[in-house]
Structures are given as C-alpha cells and as structure tokens.
C-alpha cells in the first residue's frame, strides 16, 4: 500500500512539470494571439522575387 505515496509523488511531479511548461510558454507570448497563426499556415509561400540581404539573417 505504501507504494501509493510514491505514485502520488510521481504523478504530482509530472503534473507540475506540465504546469510549469504551460506558464513558461504563456509568458513567452505563445497564447497572445490565438487566431492569426491559424490563418497564416494556410498561405502559400511567395517565391522570392529579388535577393533580400536582410531576410537571410532571419
């Protein structure tokens, strides 16, 4: 029966890790915009027309 203490500890640890990951991503702004990315993903890429020296840095 005492194994239940270990199991509770493990499951809590796991849950807390997930909570921590969620908080981190929320702080980084992952949930700031929950609409635009869903549209953005549907756009086709525009073939680059001219060389763009700055774009390559990103």
């Amino acid at each position, binding site marked *: *029966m005492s194994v*239940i*203490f270990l199991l*509770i500890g493990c499951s*809590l640890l796991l*849950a807390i890790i997930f*909570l921590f990951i*969620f*908080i981190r991503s*929320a*702080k980084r*702004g992952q*949930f*700031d*915009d*929950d*609409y*635009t990315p869903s*549209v*953005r993903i*549907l*756009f*086709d890429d*525009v073939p680059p*027309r*001219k060389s*763009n*020296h*700055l*774009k390559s*840095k*990103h």
Partner: protein
Amino acid sequence: MVQISRKYDIYHLQGPPQVLTFVSFMARQGETTTRLTCYHCGEDCTEEVYYVDEKPFCCFGCKTVYGILADNDLCAYYELESAPGKNRRDAVETSKYEILDRPDIRARFVTFEDARQMHMRFYLPHMHCSSCIWLLENLHTLHPAVAQARVDFRRKEITIIAAREEISVREVASLLDTIGYEPYLSLQDMEKKDDGSVNRGRLIRMAVAGFCFGNIMLFSAPEYLAGGAMGETSLRLLFQYLSLLFSLPVFFYCADEFYISSWKSLRKGFLHIDVPIALAIIITFVRSLYTVFVEGSGGYFDSMSGIVFFMLLGRYFQDRTYKMVSFTRDYKSYFPLSATKLEDGKEEAVAVTELQKGDTYIVRNNELIPADSILIRGQARIDYSFVTGEAEPVEKSIGELIYAGGRQRGSHLELRVIKEVSQSYLTQLWNQSGNRQKQDEESRTMVQLLSKHFSLIVLILSVMAFIFWLFMDPSRSLDALVTPMIIACPCALLLSATFTNGNAIARLGKAGLYLRNAGVIEKLTRVSVIVFDKTGTITPSRHTRIEYEGTPLQSEERSLLSSLVHESSHPYSRAIATWCGTGKLQPVRHFREIAGSGIEGEIGHTKVRLMRAPDERQGTVFLVNGEELGMFRFSAEVYPGMFALTGRLRREYPIYLLSGDSDRDKPVMDQLFDGNHQRYYCQPEDKRRFIEELQKSGEVVMMVGDGLNDAGALMQSDVGVAVTDDIHSFTPASDLIMEVQGIGQTDRLLRYAAAARKVIIWSFVISLIYNVAGLWFALQGLLQPVIAAILMPLSTITIVLFTTGLTSLFSRRLLRPVAGSDPE
C-alpha cells in the same frame, strides 16, 4: 481635361520606375448601366471609374494600391478575399507622418532597437480579413529594408522588423499607408503602452487555479466517498496537507484580483461585486485551516479553489469579447496626432497638443481642424459632418472663425489658433456629461443590488445563527456560521449574471452589436423612448437620391447640363453629374457660383443656369436661356430595412428623429417617423438638450447616432448607440457600437436584452432555491460543511449550463449574424 491628365499617372516604389498605362473609361453610358463595384474596396463606383487590367476601381487611390500590388506580384491579395481593400477616396496626405521623425514620438512606436535593426509596432484599424494578414506579412516584398512583419489579427497590430539604417519609422508608416493600411496615430498611442501582459497574467492565474482545483478535487474524493471516515490515517493526512499546499497558490496568487478590487471599492465606500467573493474565499480558507489544524479533518479547499477557478474562467471569456472593440478612447483618438506648424516661413511637424494660441499652421485636403482657428489663407470648404451631421461642406472666407472638428475639402489652408486643443468646442461637447454616467453604472445594475443585499443578509443570518447555537448547542455553532457562507456563497448568483452577460455579449458581437459592458444589457431592458439621428444612421452620408421631373432632356441639353455641373464641386452638382452620365463636355464661359442659390454659365451662345426653385417648391430648377426645363429633387437614400424597423419599433416605443441637416428629406422621413416626432436644424447641443428634456419627463432614452457628431447626445442618453461603418477605426465613448448593416436589428437587440434579463432572473431563482433550501438546513447546524461543499459546485455547474444554453438558444432565434463581423 484636368481630370483626364491626372489619370495617366506615373508612380514607382522601390526599384526602377514603371509606367502603368491603362485606359480609363467613363463608365456610365446613359443612365441604365449595371452597378460596378470597385475591385479593391468593393464599393459602388458612382463617379468616374478607373480601369486597370480590365478591373474597375472607384477612385484614384484604390487604383494606385492595385498598381503597387500588381507590380510586386502580390495580387493574391485579391484572390484570398474579394475586394479586401479600404476605400481611398478620403485618403489623407502622407505628410502627416512627418511627426514620426521626432525622436519622442518615434519612440512610442519603436519597441526595440539595436545598431542594426529596429522593431516597431503599429495599430492598423483597417485590418479585417485573411487577405490583410497575407499582404501585411509580405511587406518585405515591397521594401528591401523590411526584414519581417508579423500580424496580430485580434489586436489589429503589426510588428515590423526593419534595418535601422535603411528605413525610418516614418517611411514604414507611409509604406503601410500606400498599400491602404493607414497606421493609426493619435494622442492615445502617446499615452498608453500595452504589451498584453495583463492578459498573460490572467491566463496563467487561470491555469494555476484550474490545476490546483483539479488536484484538490482528486485528493478530496476519498473523503467524500468514505463519508469522512477513511481508514488509512496517514493517507488521509497526506491528502489533507497536499490540498492545503495546493490551495496556497490559489489563495495568495490566483485570487489577488478579487482582493484588490474589493479593497479599492471598500476604500471608496461602496460594495463592489467582488467583495462577497473575496469574503467567501477568505472565510472558506480560514475555516478550512481551522478544520485541518484544530479539528484534524479535511477542509474545503476544493470549494475555495473551485470558486476562484470558475470566476476567473467567466471573466476570461468576458474579456475576450471586449478585446474585439476598444471603448475607452475619447475625443483625442478622433483628433490627429500632428499638425504642420508654420514658423518664419518654415514648416514643422508638431504634436497637436503643442499648438499654442497664436500659432499658424497648415491644414491639407481631408485633414481635420484640430483647434478653433481663424482662416488666414486659402479657400476653406469645411465639412462639418462630424459635428453637425450636415453633409455639405461650408465655405469660409479669410478672417472667419473655423471650429475644431471640421474636415477641409480642397486646397490647403493656413490657420491661426485661437483656442488650444483641449479647450475647443468638441472637447467641451464631449466632456459635458461623460463623467456622471460612468459612476452610476457601477452601482445601479440589478445584479449587483441583489447580490449586495444577498451577501449582507447571509452574513447577518449566519452570525445570528452562530450566536443562537452558541447558547443552545455550542457544538453546532461553528458549522452554523460557516456552512451558510459556503452553501449560500453568492458565487452561483454572481456567476448567473457573469455567464449570461458574457455569452450574450459574445452572441451580440456576432450579430454586429458590440456592448461596452454587461450593464448595457440591463439598461437596454428599461428603454422607453428611442431617438434616431438622420445622416449616417438612417441615411448613408455619401449618397443622395436624385429625381428629375419636367421635359425629358435631349442629348444636347444633357450635355449642357453636364458641362455646367462639372465646373462645380457642390455635392448636388456632383450628384447631377453622376445622373447625367458621360457625354461630351463643352467649355463653359462666365461660370459663376452663387452661394446658397445656384450656378450659371454660358456654353456657346446658350445661357445655362441651375438654381434653387424660386417658388415654394423644394428643388433645384434647370434653366436654358431663362426657360425652365425641369426640376431636380434631392432626397436621401434610406438604409435597407429601415422602413420595416421603424414600423416594428413604432408599435412599442415612441421614436424620434433628430437631424442636424435641413428638412429637405422630410417627405421620406414622414414615412418612417410621425410628423411631430422630427426635429431638423439641430446643433449637437440641441440634440443633447432634447434628450435631457425627455429624461426629465421620466423617459429612459436610447439614442442611435453616429459617433462623434452626436457625442453629447449619446453621452446624455441612457443607452448611447454609435452606428459606424468601421467598428475598428472609430469607436467613441458610447455604450454600444453597431455596424451599419446591423441597424435593422435594433428591435431584435432590445428583445434579446429582455430575454437575457429573463435568463438572469430565472437562474437567480434556481440558485435562490438552492440557497434557501441549503440555508434552511445549514442555519440549523444540521448540514455538514462537506455536503455543503459538494452542493456548491453542483449548483454552479447547473447555473452555468442553464445560462449559456438559454442565451445561445435565444440568440439563434432572435439575432442574425452579420457577415464579416467576426473572423471565426
């Protein structure tokens, strides 16, 4: 001929200049042509039509934008959505972006910069569809210095990363402007800098509360199932302390907004909606600590974190809806950010707030007059439609006073300031009664009144029960104090309002009706009189309908008329020009425009004249060589659905019409309103006073008008409804913003508000039954707090399902969604 040469235009943007050659047609051959809509903005092409690549454009501006996009292979813009652009007829000269060269103002838009690059953020009110996102995120194709552009669609913001040395903030702003996305520059941007951290904070609080709530529920489950008599003591203790541990972040971190707002309200001396919640949270927590440490049994941490989690969840959904529209702007967002000051013959961009009495400044075509001024140079044709509702520009001569809020149509003006921005006419109008209304909004709503008294009664009752049982049977006393607090926790009652209103606001938003706050629903149900503004509300401000009666015009006469009216820019002349269609234009000699009367000129040997009817007829007569051929009548076109709407409304409410315009549209309006319920020639102040008088006679007034020109009246009224074409560009301090397409739904809105109120009342009754039954047992000290803690979330869940279900059902029955009002 001037017009023709303007159309063969050369433009270039980054790279070798290119000449776009295209043919421009005059679209209308005679009167009966099909309606042409602009390929860029989708509006009807009423005047001249420009053609590029066989696509029609309503104005030069739209055509230019298309040219730029076509040139850069960005025409997918038009394929994602049809006619996604913004009409460019009233485009402002880009000189207004000069202010962005000033370091202090530039810093408002730059969020980060280093030696190589800079990040800047603009608010683009026009952003409204997926085409917009696509085009804006391809901004780098248009200018090599732009490295990346990211759009946040909901906030209508664009973040641009660009090479610092190669492009300035002003150039980026002008670039956005040239493709039809005018960055929003106003004093507002100078005051606030919101980076969304508030929302992130709430999201994290919600996540933490939900996490803790779920875990505590799991830990409490054995206690519920075993009825508090769990065998394994060590396990029970562990669960107790774990629950306590998880409740700490909920109590100290997640619930902080309730403490803060109740503390603020208590200091101001009134009971805010959050006070009972904060009290319930604190009492439940303290009571649980007592049971854990003193009695050694499980606490009610699950119900406490449940209260916090559900309350945060409800508020989060309410907030999301508010994000759609910003209501908090004031007159300042209407005024431009900068003015071009003239000093010693040099032009200098200054912030409008820096304009001093006696300064000379320049106002260009389509720019607003920011301060009351005297005209020094130039031909002023001021469009006061924002102030008075009168659509026709007023001519002013040198030395005359020009009030703030007018828009110059025509060449540029030199003006001298006589009153600074903050003291001007509009500002006064705006500030008149704004403050009073906001205060009573806080205290007057039905829900708050009820819940305030409710929580007070519960407090008194439980304290009385506590004292009673202290003498009768001390063992019951503590249960009798706390159980009523838990079971009669006002949160079920509060949730009923929060969830009903939150869902109702969201549903109304889908129908093109945006509410300032939940209190508006409540106020809508008490409306007894409805007052309408005319221009921009019942009639579109741009279009006038024209009727001709008299001798049918032959092509020669038509050509004479057409040539004459082409010399004038009066709105009536333009309307007649459109009516005439295209024909051969002949040179006009001795052209004269007689203010307030008409126009005349000579074509060949024929004297042509167009003047106001000399007798009592309402109209404009057309005379050739002194002989009258016929008469034009002008009347406003009415928005579709208006006749049906006023018909429905008249059965239930007295409705009034207030117009700043002349009474020339009275014949049409008579079909909509009772004859003696119409007022014309109203100044904004008259409108406000009219509403004030209605209120004095005990009426609750709903005013439907357009944003700024009726600001005073909207503020004065109990429910101010601002009608607008573009909910995002201009949102003044009204209670409700309505899209023009939604105006036919005014009566549905009122009925829906009544339905929402009923839902609140019903759910109130349900939770009252819960509460009264619970209290009955709790006050006798018969109910164990554990059972109370089970009943509490159960009642909450019932209420949430009941309210959201019913409001959705009613909205499906009553409201019609407006296309494009919501991206989802």
